[in-house]
């Protein structure tokens, strides 16, 4: 099987496993979904006949394998059922929240890349020199700071204290700048470490020396030899941190009252709104797998040695 297909197949296998686990949550829940939906749709005391009818409608009276198959086919089409909290379709709830989270994530990724470059590049000229030691100290500090701590400090001093930004964020691009900062700092510091290591290896390699001996300038060697070599480990780590980004988003969105998926997740967990939680967890898995798939594909595109092996 060609490598790209193999990667896709393994991603689908992971997704199917995650799907089974997520669906299994329903079995563990003490709540009766049919009753819960009727309550959410405004019926304060559903009659037993009504509950039975809804249960039949939802297919909850069928065998577990059958239920799972129905749930899975619906999920693939984007139908995650009805929210137990609002009585609205889960897909609609998600769709309303997704743009805000995508904005926050993109801004955070942009910040993180800037942080990584800013911390990795200055020390290259003289490893072990003052600039390098300073940057490494920042990397250490940055990766040690918890997201919520940075978020609280930002809220307290920048938003409330200095009056910059808003306490209740609106989910727009400009509103994303501040909440994205705590998300980006830790990830950016982590990325900087990997980027610095990759660049140092590449720039110290004999092929970079050959380039210098041929008269290539520093910037040329950095751009054409250094960065492409550092890209492979960097992309791998960046994709791995996509998972952490989702967890961080839950914290930051709650803190900044950002109208995104992360806050919806916390609200839904609090309310025991299982269908929404299921959908968000699966969405996270899909995002994580997509990021890794993209990273692997890009890495293979950069490195000819990876293209043909196996």
């Amino acid at each position, binding site marked *: 099987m060609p490598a790209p297909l193999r990667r896709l197949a393994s991603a689908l296998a992971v997704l199917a496993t995650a799907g089974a686990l997520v669906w299994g949550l329903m079995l563990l829940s003490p709540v009766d979904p049919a009753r819960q939906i009727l309550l959410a749709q405004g019926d304060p005391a559903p009659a037993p006949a009504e509950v039975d009818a809804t249960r039949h409608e939802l297919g909850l009276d069928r065998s577990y394998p059958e239920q799972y198959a129905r749930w899975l086919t619906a999920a693939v089409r984007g139908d995650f059922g009805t929210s137990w909290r609002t009585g609205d379709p889960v897909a609609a709830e998600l769709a309303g929240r997704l743009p805000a989270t995508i904005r926050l994530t993109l801004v955070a990724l942009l910040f993180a890349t800037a942080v990584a470059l800013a911390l990795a590049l200055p020390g290259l000229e003289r490893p072990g020199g003052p600039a390098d030691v300073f940057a490494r100290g920042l990397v250490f500090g940055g990766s040690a700071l918890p997201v919520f701590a940075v978020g609280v400090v930002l809220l307290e001093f920048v938003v409330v204290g200095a009056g910059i930004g808003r306490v209740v964020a609106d989910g727009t691009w400009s509103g994303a700048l501040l909440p994205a900062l705590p998300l980006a700092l830790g990830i950016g510091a982590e990325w900087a470490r990997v980027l610095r290591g990759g660049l140092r290896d590449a720039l110290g390699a004999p092929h970079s020396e050959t380039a*210098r001996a*041929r008269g290539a300038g520093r910037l040329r060697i950095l751009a054409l030899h250094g960065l492409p070599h550092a890209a492979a480990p960097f992309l791998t780590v960046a994709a791995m941190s996509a998972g952490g980004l989702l967890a961080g988003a839950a914290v930051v969105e709650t803190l900044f009252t950002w109208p995104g998926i992360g806050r919806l997740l916390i609200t839904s967990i609090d309310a025991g709104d299982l269908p929404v939680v299921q959908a968000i967890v699966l969405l996270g898995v899909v995002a994580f797998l997509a990021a890794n798939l993209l990273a692997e594909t890009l890495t293979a595109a950069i490195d000819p040695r990876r293209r043909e092996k196996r």
Partner: protein
Amino acid sequence: MATVLKIRDLAVTYPDGTQALRGVDLDLAEGECLALAGESGSGKSTLLRVLLSLLPKGSRVTGSAVVDDDGTSLEAVGADRATLRRLRGGLLGYVGQDPHAAADPLWSVGRHLREAWRARRMRPAKGAAEERAEAVGITQARARLRQYPHQWSGGMLQRAHIAGAGVHGPLVTLADEPTSALDAGLAATTLAVLRADARALLLVCHDLRHVAAVADRVAVLYAGRVVETGVDVPARPRHPYTKALVAAAPRPGHGLPEELPGTSPDLRRELTGCAFAPRCGLALESCHREDPVLDDGVACPVVPR
């Protein structure tokens, strides 16, 4: 023949205090191949790196190394950016040790070869890279240059490096043990290709036998000094160190080679007298006090002239 490279009293001290070169004088004439021999740590590679300003930051260099191009003299020691631009890849070509390590694995061989122009902000003429490749014996260049280094053999890839080093017709080609990563049969042909392609060749080589076939002259380095120089060094060594070096080379049917007694001196300390004296069976009492100067091609008072 005109002298194209003139090295005078060249000394290099690395940031850790190691004195890699301690007062080296060398001349290289146009069309000549001068081989630098000696053990690792003798300063051979340092000499090439001084010329290209590739020493680590914080290294101290004194003395002079002048590249003489048709009346224009360029000082390589402490060269400014403009001079460096003329030297690196222009007047000085460079061929490294391990051809696979010296090629970026992410680049096709052709891109690597064309980089010899682009690094100097030029654009290779159409077919120029292929032409260079064919000139050093790479056949079917058009198709082969599209391949990547890991698809090439070491010998052929080293030819591609030789092609790249010679793109701008350098006055002096510097080769740092260009055959140490190749097997013996390939080494000879690769050296021959290098010799044929270079206008003047400064060849660092630890194996004196390879040197004999291509070099017009050999300079033997020990502990950062030239201890012997001459035309016939590999066949008729005169300095006790060179003799030991030749005797240390294995020859079939002659049993185990004689190993050099002792170890190389610690170059981070100030040396008094001849650096080889502690390991030398012929050393006089004065050898430990006075550093011998190069006289009639040998820096040793014991050798009969």
